[in-house]
């Protein structure tokens, strides 16, 4: 069929040849993503969250505004001074939400990087070598998958005690099998492509084949999974904290704020409304972005 028209830019190389400029594949993907309205909304929200997390200290001082109790100010309705009101011990809710984003994103990111690395390597090995190796790795992963993720995290937290580090471990372990499956699924079709055989035919080592040919071509679903899974992880953090197993007070965390506000839900609904909304919007934003990435990375659209 017809190739779509290229905007060909001619450039000069070192030895004076006129050649068509190299197309930037990442830029192409970005262009397609930018056309997707909902993905852009998702991305904007994610960026705001990241900025909040990075500049949390500039916006609100942790010691004086986020954790310091101020009983005289307790349970104030939203106002100019406290846009989201104050909680039962007089702390600014907005300040705590802003600092909470730091906790959520930090833990979410750390747990995801861990699951991605371990799950990715295991999945790639399973997919690339196949047969017995595949069987052994994937059956172990299946065992983990058979336990509900949150339940597994609860067990780990209950066994190891609640601390940020243990929370990361718990989330990372429960996220690993998902990544292994996705990566294996992405590697399998690529492994059977003729260009992998071609790479072997020109004398590539297995290592080179995996890193230069297989991984770059199976990244797309992994990027999508990473985005979507971040949402799941943040939700799990909130869930665990809500149950009292995650982040312990006074560290600001959306789930534990929700939990603390529960006692005052009749009179002071904003204590639960704002953290609840934040969680919802965050999850929605990551999912919108993930969906958009899935479309933008789809090779059929190329």
């Amino acid at each position: 069929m017809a190739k779509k028209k290229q905007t060909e830019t001619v450039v000069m190389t070192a030895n004076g040849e006129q050649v068509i400029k190299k197309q930037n594949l990442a830029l192409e993907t970005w262009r397609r993503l930018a056309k997707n309205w909902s993905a852009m909304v998702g991305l904007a929200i994610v960026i705001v969250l990241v900025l909040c997390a990075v500049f949390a200290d500039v916006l609100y001082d942790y010691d004086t505004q986020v954790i310091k109790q101020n009983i005289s100010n307790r349970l104030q309705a939203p106002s100019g001074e406290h846009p989201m009101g104050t909680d039962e011990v007089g702390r600014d809710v907005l300040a705590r939400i802003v600092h909470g984003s730091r906790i959520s994103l930090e833990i979410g990111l750390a747990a995801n990087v861990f699951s991605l690395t371990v799950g990715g390597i295991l999945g790639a090995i399973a997919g690339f070598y196949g047969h017995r190796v595949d069987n052994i790795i994937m059956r172990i992963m299946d065992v983990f998958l058979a336990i509900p993720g949150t339940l597994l995290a609860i067990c780990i937290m209950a066994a190891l005690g609640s601390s940020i580090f243990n929370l990361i471990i718990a989330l990372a372990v429960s996220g690993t099998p998902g990544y292994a499956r996705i990566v294996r699924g992405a590697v399998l079709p690529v492994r059977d492509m003729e260009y992998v055989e071609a790479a072997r035919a020109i004398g590539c080592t297995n290592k080179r084949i995996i890193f230069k040919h297989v991984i770059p071509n199976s990244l797309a679903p992994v990027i999508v999974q990473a985005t979507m899974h971040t949402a799941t992880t943040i939700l799990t953090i909130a869930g665990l904290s809500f149950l009292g197993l995650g982040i312990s007070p006074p560290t600001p965390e959306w789930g534990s704020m929700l939990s603390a506000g529960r006692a005052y839900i009749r009179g002071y609904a904003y204590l639960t409304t704002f953290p609840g909304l934040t969680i919802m919007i965050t999850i929605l934003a990551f999912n919108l972005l993930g969906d958009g990435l899935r479309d933008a990375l789809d090779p059929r659209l190329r």
Partner: protein
Amino acid sequence: MNEEIKNTKDLELDIKNLVVEYRTPGGVTQALNGLDLEIEKGKTLGLVGETGAGKTTTGLSILQLIPDPPGVIVDGSIKLAGEDVMLKSEKEMEKIRGQQVSMIFQDPMTSLNPVMPVEDQIAEVIEMHELGEDGKPISHSAAILKAKEMLELVGIPGDRGTEFPHQFSGGMKQRVVIAIALACNPKLLIADEPTTALDVTIQAQVLEMMKGLREKYGTSMLMITHDLGIVAEICDTVSVIYAGRVIEHGTLEDVFDFTRHPYTEGLFNSLPDLDHRENRLKPIKGLMPDPTNLPKGCAFCPRCDYAMEICKTEKPPRVYRNDEHYVECFLYNEQNIKEGGLLGR
């Protein structure tokens, strides 16, 4: 344009000046640019061309199955036995498809439903279109019976009808596809590269069978292919299509023995000659033009060894060598086309 109306012919299919575009954000692909096609009742026309020439689009337009969007039929008329299909409603088209016109697709592996026994797939078409003896819609059992008959007809034992597509080999799947297409005795059969996915010995079997069935039922056929060998085997007339236009048309003899268009000549020269194996191939230079950006004049001009200045700017007119055989090329006029033209082969 040379508007010669041939009332004497009894046409099963008559396409005039068909223009189809695919409009995408990336640009407008001009799939067909004024295509003319005629098939007489009971005859077989070979539509020959390369990837992207518009062969499949032609087949889909006849059935009004162009994916819309992005496909748009911009201009032209398609008449089936004298009736314009463009004026038909979707409901009426549903009746026509399968009953009056059927299509066989290239890939037998994907055109069958993998979770349905083959006889049910054949019966489905029959139930949709045929009436029983009492004038009511045909019963399922009667349709299955007819389906088994169809299977026997294409050379598959009727009792294998309860099997699923994956239990059949490639050649047999294509036979099933043909059985489905012929189940309602269509007047016109559109075969889009029906044997390309098959091995030569199987291809020979399937072609032989199609020839037999065509004679038995007097079906007209549109044979879409890139293989001139198959055309020589099965067709009565040939239309050579390039960039959405028929650039040469005639009877088998006209086109094979009195080849006029440089492109048609190029196609013949590109094929290895079985009798003179040492001969070097003479390929057509260059590539198919970009259908989103066709040349202003003759679409073949950039690849043509005989191109002249005029070819770059103007569309060549149609020149007739006899009542049937015509060429769209500036090399010819009314006189020299009969003399053997400028090209010798």
